[in-house]
């Protein structure tokens, strides 16, 4: 039986009616229309569905929508400000870190979660942060370089 649930996504409140068995990924894509998060495997092995909840990178395909009512959810759609890409998104474009683009939203979210917690990661920390995100196109090197470039440019306080 459907329940009415309020989800806060990228700072906006959404009220949706969902069955208890629906995943957050399904609700984001199909009820709310935010199709940036992708379904690669549906089983937690690829990271294409990565979103950020309460500051942590998590898998939307393994999260039941009802369990995140009232929590701050960030998706890839929330990275840009209007028409302006975020620094990380620009870096991905400039470094050739995007080919087919399917892994990209998940990569951006894992990288965003990393940089919010650790603005100056070393290469091992970058690789560990994206270790749950698979890419079949790029061979990962340019993705790591893009994240590296953003980390290097963040003001050292």
């Amino acid at each position, binding site marked *: 039986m459907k329940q009415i649930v309020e989800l806060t996504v990228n700072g906006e409140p959404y009220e949706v009616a969902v069955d*208890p068995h629906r*995943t957050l990924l399904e609700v984001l894509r199909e009820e709310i229309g935010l199709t940036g998060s992708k379904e690669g495997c*549906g*089983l*937690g*092995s690829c*990271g294409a569905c*990565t979103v950020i909840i309460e500051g*942590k*990178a*998590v*898998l939307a*395909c*393994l*999260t*039941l929508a009802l*369990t995140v009512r009232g929590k701050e959810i960030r998706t890839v759609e929330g990275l840009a400000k209007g028409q302006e890409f975020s620094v990380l998104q620009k870096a991905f474009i400039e470094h050739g870190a995007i080919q087919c683009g399917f892994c990209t939203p998940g990569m951006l979210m*894992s990288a965003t979660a990393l940089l919010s917690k650790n603005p100056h990661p070393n290469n091992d920390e970058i690789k*560990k*942060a*994206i*270790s*749950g995100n698979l890419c079949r196109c790029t061979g990962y090197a340019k993705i790591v370089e893009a994240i590296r470039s953003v980390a290097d440019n963040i003001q050292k306080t």
Partner: protein
Amino acid sequence: MLKEHEGKVKVLAGGTDLLPSMKQRLFTPEYVLDLRQIPGLGEIEDNFQKGVRIGSLSTLAAIEESPVVKGRFPALAEAAGLVGATQLRNMGTIGGNIALETRCWYFNQSHSWRRSIERCIKLGGKVCHVVKRSKKQCYAYFAADTVPILVALNAEVTIKGNGKGRQCLLKDIYTQEGKNSNTLKPTEVISEVLVPLPDPGSGSSYKKLRIREAIDFPLVGAAVQVVMSGDICRDAKIVLGAVGSGPIEVTEAESVLRGNPITEELIEEVGKISQKAAKPMPNAVSTPEYRRKMAGLLTKQALREAVNRANILE
């Protein structure tokens, strides 16, 4: 609630094992009980005299990063950090890892894949596709990374259900059988783990073998704790994961170490004993022969590291 809907309800913690299993229709519960609604199960508490109490809903990421766990049991923090990948550790809990379903590549498949072969023992059927002559025993392997080191550290577990509680050594909840791999009843949940303070001169280590450096379950896991007095090993615990249906304590290797100075010959002997104690089946990605050899090798690596750590801390 577990009692009321017994047989039709599954508990949910991180969801990183339950949801994939439900998507593959390995379990089709009518109800799912979200344990995260219960307050207080997610804490990590340094109980100085007794040890460290870890609530069952503590995420693996929290354990990996906890200064208390890193300070007192670095091998446990490392083991938690080897589970899955970043996102999976942010969601997955220690309770879920302790109660992790055993795995087999004839079991962990989609509904449509499994429809094409006879239903196996783990699914309530009559055959085992791994060990053909088996009539009742399931050979699914034990896939948890935090359990071997927890057992090596003599961890205790508190289990609650039906208004009652019980406490025992974590090691004692495992049955070494693949279908009903632990003694948790359907009405019980794990509430916390207590890792007792190690004796002075202790050092421990956990080594994991997997094909890729993230996401994969272990093909072999080797956990070692030693208690050293100078270069004499006063006590040792050696526990293997993923090469049996439960965590395997290699008691023969422990006896060989106890009371003796650690030499390269002794380490080699321990490796050989450990290799023989490993009982992997052809139900995971590499051959049983390779996994047996690697069980020996990883035990030696973990032993050397545990001894080094014990000597540094003295």
